[in-house]
């Protein structure tokens, strides 16, 4: 049943966000720490475990893969609702600090990629 996949995905997301909120409170800040990352880890572990013990049916799997495929359209919608005007109106300070930070971060990627365990 396709709803099993969707429900499993939803359950992982909710558990992750709840744990992320707890982590935030633990450190005394009003923010979610890594909730979505925890949810992703949960899904990875769970799907790994389920694959070993019994197969998720093809249709059940589609309840998850559909959302992963609809990801790019969602990102396009996300881009269409950004406050682009606000970013440009922020003036030189905003443009400069954001711009330089992004540029330096890009330059660091090849450097850090050399770190292996």
């Amino acid at each position: 049943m396709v709803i099993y996949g969707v429900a499993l995905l939803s359950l992982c997301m909710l558990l992750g966000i709840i744990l992320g909120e707890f982590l935030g409170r633990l450190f005394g800040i009003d923010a979610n720490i890594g909730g979505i990352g925890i949810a992703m880890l949960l899904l990875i572990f769970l799907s790994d475990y389920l694959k070993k013990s019994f197969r998720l049916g093809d249709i059940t799997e589609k309840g998850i893969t559909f959302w992963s495929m609809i990801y790019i359209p969602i990102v396009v919608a996300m881009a269409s609702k950004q406050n682009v005007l606000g970013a440009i109106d922020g003036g030189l300070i905003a443009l400069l600090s954001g711009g330089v930070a992004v540029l330096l971060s890009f330059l660091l990627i090849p450097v850090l990629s050399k770190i292996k365990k």
Partner: protein
Amino acid sequence: MDIFEIINTVLSKNGLITSFVFVGCIVWFSYFLSNKLTRGKFHGSAIAILLGLVFAYLGGTYTGGKQGVADIGLLSGVGLLGGAMLRDFAIVATAYGVKLDDLKASGIAGVSSLFIGVALSFFVGAIVAIIFGYTDAISITTIGAGTVTFVVGPVTGSALGASSEVIALSIAAGLVKSILVMIGTPLLAKYIGLNNPNSAMIFGGLMGTNSGVAAGLAAVDPKLVPYGAMTATFYTGLGCLLAPSILFLIIELVY
């Protein structure tokens, strides 16, 4: 009976469905441009994201709102489709099928990139603030925090008691960062070796902006999305943790 009025009402009432058509058209047109003009060299999804940003700019100028096209009544559904809830849901879904070994192999690089990324963006923002004449530690910290992400800025600013102009500025700095990551990633991916899970995790950790990383990787290779998103999701939390505490103390020591 005005036919346009009927259509308008139906489209507004079924906002989410309208947004599927809207996004579907953008994506179709973008892949058409990608194939005809660049022979597929410039990824269709990269063009779609750029077009989305252009529409967001036009929407913002037209309505004066903060939500891009979602402030236009007819397209309010785009706000739901592109909102944090569905975006995060889809991001979690991309994790299905990720290999645990790939994550483990890049664990140390991923975690160090997080700390380096937060500190780097913070100090860039702080230095720019100082160059532009800010001399109080609270404003400098808030602008630095905004450069981390547009969530960390206001969280830090309100914790420290920064003025609302400075908080608005910090949000703008974060927005600039997020939009530049969306635009810059597909252009630069080739030159910085962003083509494997390891560098995607480092990319997520260094950039940290959820929307920027999500869109940037989608435009390069959707298979890399879960790796970048995995580290990026810890970035804002880490920033909210470090900016009002350790990083503020460092700035206060200097000023």
